[in-house]
């Protein structure tokens, strides 16, 4: 396997040489996506030499919505509902870092109970997102049971989130200043029972999917992204941790309540597709522990929200905050000019940073390796396009 730099040179050479398919190339050009069951709202063009992929050109942007521009025309509160559209099933995390950045800008702190509620929502949404992702990983490898099980077990988490926030997805729960409302009375007991049941189901997932020899054959040693390459390419989240870098924003830059929570950063040193597929699953387990701990340490009563004016004006300046989302570091850079609307909002998502590794992993592998490598990068096309 050639090193990253060689691959970059190779890809540059190929992309300049081959513009159209011709008989002399002896290569077959395939346009994978956007109408392909194996990609989602995303396309990449690959060139095949026999069964081997020799050239990959990624082509995102099919679901670009201009979220960053839209932010400039709305005030700090009305930005929330549209900002969570890119990842509707991980909306707690994408609004979390926005709220943190706005709070940093206007200089307020969230009440303690509100911080706990935010963390609980964030962890529940991480589970929700990862189960959805896992379901798609299952069907990408032709494992239909693994598609149905996590998709059905998401209901456990969605049920909890509906009780807590009023919505199954796109909760608009995190707002600058805290969370929208307090949790219902019997939430703690319900949450504990659902999480306990989910942990039992996770064991079954491990039996049927991760310990399946056919799954291991397909993913182990496939799509190696070494530690140095991972850092050089700037991947984040589970992809980075699967390459042996124990880097979790919740640990290295603890926000809100996370510095009081005791949890482990999951990472593996095998650097292959299996590690990238397994780390999010381990994260779900860790999230179950975190939720239990949060519910345990949570203050019995108190405010959940710092009251703010509905059209609050940010002081001139800028702020930058990031959180660990289901797909890695998710950061907001907000610039304010002193009016009630942000001057500029920049969203940096884990998906977009991870997908940059795809060409380097795919070149040299077989067509059959394409789904396990592609989806192990923990990529959500809509979030990357914003």
């Amino acid at each position, binding site marked *: 396997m050639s090193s990253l730099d060689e691959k970059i040179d190779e890809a540059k050479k190929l992309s300049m040489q081959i513009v159209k398919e011709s008989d002399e190339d002896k290569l*077959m050009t*395939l346009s994978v996506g956007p109408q*392909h*069951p*194996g990609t989602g709202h995303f396309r990449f063009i690959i060139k095949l030499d026999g*069964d081997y992929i020799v050239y990959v050109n990624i082509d995102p942007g099919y679901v670009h919505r201009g979220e960053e521009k839209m932010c400039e025309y709305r005030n700090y509160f009305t930005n929330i509902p549209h900002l969570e559209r890119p990842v509707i099933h991980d909306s707690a995390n994408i609004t979390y870092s926005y709220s943190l950045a706005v709070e940093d800008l206007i200089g307020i702190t969230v009440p303690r109970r509100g911080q706990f509620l935010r963390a609980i929502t964030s962890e529940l949404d991480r589970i929700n997102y990862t189960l959805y992702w896992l379901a798609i990983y*299952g*069907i*990408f*490898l*032709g*494992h*239909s*049971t*693994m*598609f*149905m*099980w996590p998709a*059905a077990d998401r209901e456990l988490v969605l049920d909890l989130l509906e009780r807590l926030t009023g919505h199954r997805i796109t909760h608009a729960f995190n707002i600058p200043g805290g969370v929208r409302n307090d949790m219902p009375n019997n939430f703690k007991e319900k949450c504990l029972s659902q999480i306990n049941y989910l942990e039992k189901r996770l064991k079954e997932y491990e039996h*049927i*999917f991760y310990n*399946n020899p*056919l*799954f291991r*054959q*397909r993913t182990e040693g496939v799509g190696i992204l070494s530690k140095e390459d991972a850092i050089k390419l700037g991947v984040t989240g589970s992809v980075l941790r699967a390459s042996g870098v124990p880097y979790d924003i919740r640990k290295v830059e603890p926000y809100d309540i996370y510095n009081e929570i005791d949890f482990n950063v999951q990472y593996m040193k095998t650097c292959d597709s299996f590690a990238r597929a397994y780390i999010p699953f381990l994260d779900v387990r860790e999230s179950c522990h975190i939720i239990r701990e949060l519910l345990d340490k949570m203050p019995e009563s108190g405010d959940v929200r710092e009251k703010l004016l509905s059209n609050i004006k940010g002081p001139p300046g800028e702020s930058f905050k990031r959180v660990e989302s289901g797909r890695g570091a998710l950061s907001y850079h907000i610039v304010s000019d002193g009016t009630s609307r942000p001057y500029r909002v920049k969203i940096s998502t884990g998906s977009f940073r991870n997908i940059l590794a795809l060409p380097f992993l795919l070149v040299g592998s*077989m*067509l*059959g*390796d*394409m*789904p396990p490598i592609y989806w192990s990068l923990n990529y959500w096309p809509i979030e990357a396009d914003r």
Partner: protein
Amino acid sequence: MGALNPDFRFGNFVGSIIQLVLFILAFVTLLILPIIFFMLFFVPLPVVDGQVLTPYLFFSMMVDPSRTLPIVQFLIHTDLFRAAVFPGFAFGALVAASTIFIERKLLAKMQLRIGPLYAGKIEGIFQLLADGLKLVSKEIIVPSGADKMIFWLAPIMFVSTSAAVVALIPVASGWVAADVDVGLIAVFAILGFFPLIILLFSWASNSKYPFIGGLRALHQMVAFEIPFLLSALPVVIFSGSLNLSNIALSQNLFWNIFVMPINAFVFFISSLAELERVPFDLPEAESEIVAGWLTETSGMIFGLIQLGNYLKLYALAGLFVILFLGGWYGPQIFPQELIPGASASEDPLLRMVALEGLYNPVTINSIFWFTVKTFGIILLMLITRGINPRIRIDILLHTGWYKLIVLTFINLFIVLTLIYGGILGPEGLISAR
């Protein structure tokens, strides 16, 4: 080809068909029959058994079992009936239809779903009928630049080749559409046509994904052909015959699977690969190559290929039963007489039913056990779909060319040792005959 009415209901459709049938019946009785009777006044009537065949006599003959039973008995022993209805196509298609229904419900139960529910009121039992109706009503799209003749012919060839395999499978002693002396070889010879048909079809589609799928199917089927053949070799050595009926008959003492379990395993794996079922569904790998060689199929072309696939599934499961699971042998559970005391009865009709051999307890028992065993094997083939992901092409080829062939040889030597040691085989100590 139009789309269905938006407020189309399947129940209404069935109701309208029943109404139509009733209308035709009423039309025939009230209008056509009087006209025929009127015309019969002017033609001389034939004489049967010394009686003039009046319409009244004709109808009384139609409902007289002593006259119709011999006709039925004659019909079910014709070659056409065997090829088209009972051990042949219609039976295979029925098994295939029930397989599809069982597959859907079984997978749904494994995956915490409900499965088909509404069509047919009882657990969605008519879902297949509704799906078939949908497929028939769909437009068949031929891709531009496709080789039209092969594109239209290949699905038909696919179904007829599958039906040819079904015709070779005996379901009971003497109950087989084509009793060939080289039955086993004939099965493998016909199975050898499938890669050709698939490759032709994928080439004729004039599309990239079907082409990759067709090449994958070719590689896969050729790689598994040899272990497939070799795994059946000890059975032939053991029974001393290539005739499938004789192979089944040679297992009246014990089943072959007890002597050659490894070969049975290899045969099972190879038939999964031959059938393109999960984990060997690479030619139709959805997330990699859209739908593989089926990408350009639509409407009834897709329907025919699916029918062919499930016929093939029945044929290979039946072949497994014949080769390894003792064919149709099983404990006699059907009574000697359907109606007790019928053969000694005073009633000539009852005696006739008993004596004319319409109810043969041994044959019925054989068919019952064969069907039960076949469904058991089909169930095993279906379960693998629920628990396994797809495997990669290089692992598949490695498995086919290297591992499975070695495994078959191990069991082949065990069987040869047993036979030349004088323990088993036609002349052995524990002889079947």
